[in-house]
Structure formats: C-alpha cells, structure tokens
C-alpha cells in the first residue's frame, strides 16, 4: 500500500510540474503576442545567449566533427566504405549532432544562468520591486529570454554545422589522405536542403526548451541561496532531458515525412 501511495505521489508531482510548465509556456506565448515588448532586453539577451555561446558551441562542434569523421572512417573500413565518410559526417552533423550539441551546450551554459539570475532576483525581492514599478516581470524577464534563445539557437546551429563539417574535413585531409576539394564536393552534392532545415527546426524547439526551463525554475525558485542552486540544477537537467526526448520525437516525425 505504501509503495502504491509513493508511486501515486510521484505521478502527481510529475503531472503537477508538467501542468505548471505548460501554463508558464502558454503565458510566455500570450505575453509575446500582446506586448509591451522590451527590445533593449531582447538585444541584451541575444548577446548573452547567442554571441557569448559561440566559443563553446564552436569548440564542441569542431571536436565532435573530427571524432565523428575518425569513427566513421574506422567503421566504414570494415566493409570497404571509407569513402562515404564525408557524406555521413555531413548528414550526422546537420540532422542530429549540430542542433543537439549546440542545445546541450546552451542548456549547460544558459539554462543555469537564467535560472540563477531570475531565482536570485526572486530571493532578493527584485521581482516584487519590478512589479511595484509598474513593469510586468514576466514580460521584462521571461519573454526576451525565450525569444532570444529561439532566435539564437538556430543561428548557433548553422555555426555548429559549418564548424563540425570543417572538423571532419580537417581530420580527413590531414590524417586520412582525403582530397580536400573532393571532400567538399562530396559533402555539398550529398546534403539536401531538408537535412539542414530539419536540424534548424529542431534547434528552434530546443532554444525554446532551454530558455523555458531556465525561466520556469528561476521564476518559481524559493528558499534563498539554496533554492537558487536547486533551481539551476533542475533547469539544466530538465532542459537536457527534454532536448533528448523532443529530439527523438521530431526525428521520428521527420522520418515519416
């Protein structure tokens, strides 16, 4: 009986959180459509979320592209298909690894920061102060971050795609005796517009998830400094899990198109 009760409690808690996050997301969308909009805040967030994530996303992409090239070369060699490596690297990066890795880097860097910033503002009454200054904290703090992440992550994914493929090219031409021009031609000839576009659609959804989790856990943080720390951890974990789950669902859906 105790076990059933415990399972029931967990199920209720999960449902409660799912409902609260969904309402939070809907409130964000409603606020986005109705204004007022804080464009200065949006630019600030675009810079913080997008521009300052470029180094970490770029480095992750170059190493992943390089490692992927080596592994595909080794695996392909088992049935004499090493030459297909440029195409597989490009496909893997654009459809899957580019958006997912960029999103995971952003989840680690941005979700945690957003949750900590907004959570600290909650703990120090800054959010209450903002409301008494006739400014809706939801529109001022949450909406610009959601929009900035939705814009920034596809752009970061384009960068990750380019640098990731370049990482594969670098390894292939330096260490695996591939011809540089042929590698590029094979990649360009093979890749279809949909490979890139499907990755960018995923990135848009991931951007929303990353910012949503940071904002939700920060906005609802309680319990002082400890609560802020907990909010950051929950934001990163929840964002990462939702990125993987939604990646599978979107991949499944795209494969049926």
């Amino acid at each position, binding site marked *: 009986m105790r076990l059933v009760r415990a399972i029931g409690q967990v199920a209720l808690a999960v449902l409660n959180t799912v409902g609260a996050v969904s309402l939070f997301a809907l409130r964000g969308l409603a606020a986005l459509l109705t204004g007022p909009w804080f464009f200065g805040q949006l630019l600030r967030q675009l810079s913080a979320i997008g521009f300052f994530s470029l180094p970490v996303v770029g480095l992750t992409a170059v190493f992943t592209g390089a490692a992927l090239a080596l592994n595909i070369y080794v695996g392909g060699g088992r049935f004499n298909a090493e030459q297909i490596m440029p195409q597989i690297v490009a496909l893997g990066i654009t459809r899957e690894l580019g958006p997912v890795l960029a999103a995971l880097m952003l989840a680690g860097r941005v979700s945690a920061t957003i949750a900590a910033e907004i959570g600290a503002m909650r703990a120090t009454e800054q959010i209450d*102060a903002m409301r008494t200054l006739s400014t809706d904290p939801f529109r001022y703090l949450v909406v610009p971050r959601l929009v900035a992440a939705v814009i920034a992550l596809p752009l970061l994914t384009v960068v990750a795609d380019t640098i990731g493929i370049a990482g594969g090219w670098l390894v292939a031409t330096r260490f695996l005796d591939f011809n540089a021009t042929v590698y590029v031609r094979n990649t360009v000839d093979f890749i279809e517009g949909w490979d890139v576009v499907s990755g960018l659609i995923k990135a848009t959804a991931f951007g929303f998830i990353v910012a949503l989790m940071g904002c939700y856990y920060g906005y609802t943080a309680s319990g002082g400094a400890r609560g802020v720390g907990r909010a950051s951890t929950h934001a990163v974990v929840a964002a990462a899990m939702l990125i993987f789950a939604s990646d599978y669902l979107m991949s499944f859906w795209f494969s049926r198109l």
Partner: protein
Amino acid sequence: MTRPPPKLEWRGVSKRFGAEPVLNRLNLTVPAGCSLVIIGGSGQGKSVMIKLALGLIRPDAGKLLLDGKALPGLGGRLQRRLYGKAGVLFQGAALFDSLSVWENVAFRLINADGVPRKTARRRALAALERVKLDPDIAERFPSELSGGMQKRVGLARAIAADPEILFFDEPTTGLDPITAAVINDLIVDQVKRLGCTTLSITHDLASARRIGDEIAMLHEGQIVWRGPAADLDRTDHPQVRAFVDMQSA
C-alpha cells in the same frame, strides 16, 4: 458633506500560511497625507500587510481598498493604478543588480511611463541629488555601493516618479545608528516635499518616532493599539509597553 475615503484601507483582512494564521480579520485605515508606522515583533505579519496592499500576495478573506475602491490584487487594472501612484523602499533595497544606479532610479520612467532615456536620466540624477547622493555614482552598479547608499538609491527610486503613497519596509534594518538617522531624515524630508501618504513598518522605535505621525502596533494578526507618535511612551497598553521597554533595555 461626506468625508473622503481613507487613502488605503484593510477591511477584515485575513491571511494564513499553511496552518499558521498571520493576519486575523485586520482592520486598518491610512488617511490621505498621514504617515503611519506599524510596529511589532518579528513574525507578526508586518511585511505581509505591505505585500497584501501592493497586491504581491492575495488575502484569504477581506478587502483592500485604495481611495475607497477595492484592489483586486495581482495585476488588475486598479492594482496597476496603485503601482502608478506608489513608491516602495524594500527592506534590502531590492535594486536591480544588472542595471546601473541611474537606470535603477529611472526604471519606472523608462519601462512603464515611456519617458525617453535622456529625460529619465536627468530626472534620476535629480532624485539622487534629493537623497544627497553624488551624481558621480550614477554609472556605478548596486554591488559597488554600501548598504546605506543602496537604501538611498532605493529611496531615490521610490520618489523618482513623485508618488502619492510611499511604503517603507524596515527602512533602517541592517544600518548603523548614524546611517539609520540619515535615512530617517531623508524619508521625512521627501515625504514633506511630496506631501504624500506613507505606510512604514519597522521594529526600530527610533525610526518609528522620527518618521511617523501615528504609530500602530500589530500583534497576533491584529492592530492592538494606535495613537500619535508622542503617545508611544505614555501609553500603558501592555503589549506596547513590553515592546517599548524591551527596546529601551
């Protein structure tokens, strides 16, 4: 001739957190132009009173009225009207860490009133001057200021839009006696200049005597005594006496 309604009124307001009742059918009025100070021990619900009046939390029962009209709380049109008329000095100043001092002071002007940044900056500098802060600090960030300076910036932010009602939540907590006296004097000066209604909560009796026309004591969720500031030391009300004697000891 009908008497004008009080500026602010708590009518039968109750609030509990979990099983713990904090306010118990509280009735209180603040007439226009009055400086009322609420005193009381920790955990008696003083901050809750202000949060209810500001619509930051909802009452479980009862009503809050502004100029005789009920405040719906949490973002209603009337609530926003109160925000447009009110200035608040929070206990920890609650300055925005990511904004400079002048942007903090001009926050409402820029983001809610649509005042151009240049004009807002000029008005922010004037507000800083009124709380005796050097305009040189305008570009600094709150973390670069002392606690007393942060309180002054908080006061400048509260008065920048010339409010009709000012709320002070423990304005001198955490300050040394000299800095606290400076803050008290600034509050009195600015309230006089604006001619506004104020509600302050504090457990600092020196502060209460300095800034209040009237003082009321909150005990176990109700106002148990109210009178002119000068009567605080003359009353024989047991809770007030205990509170005053404890602070004097």
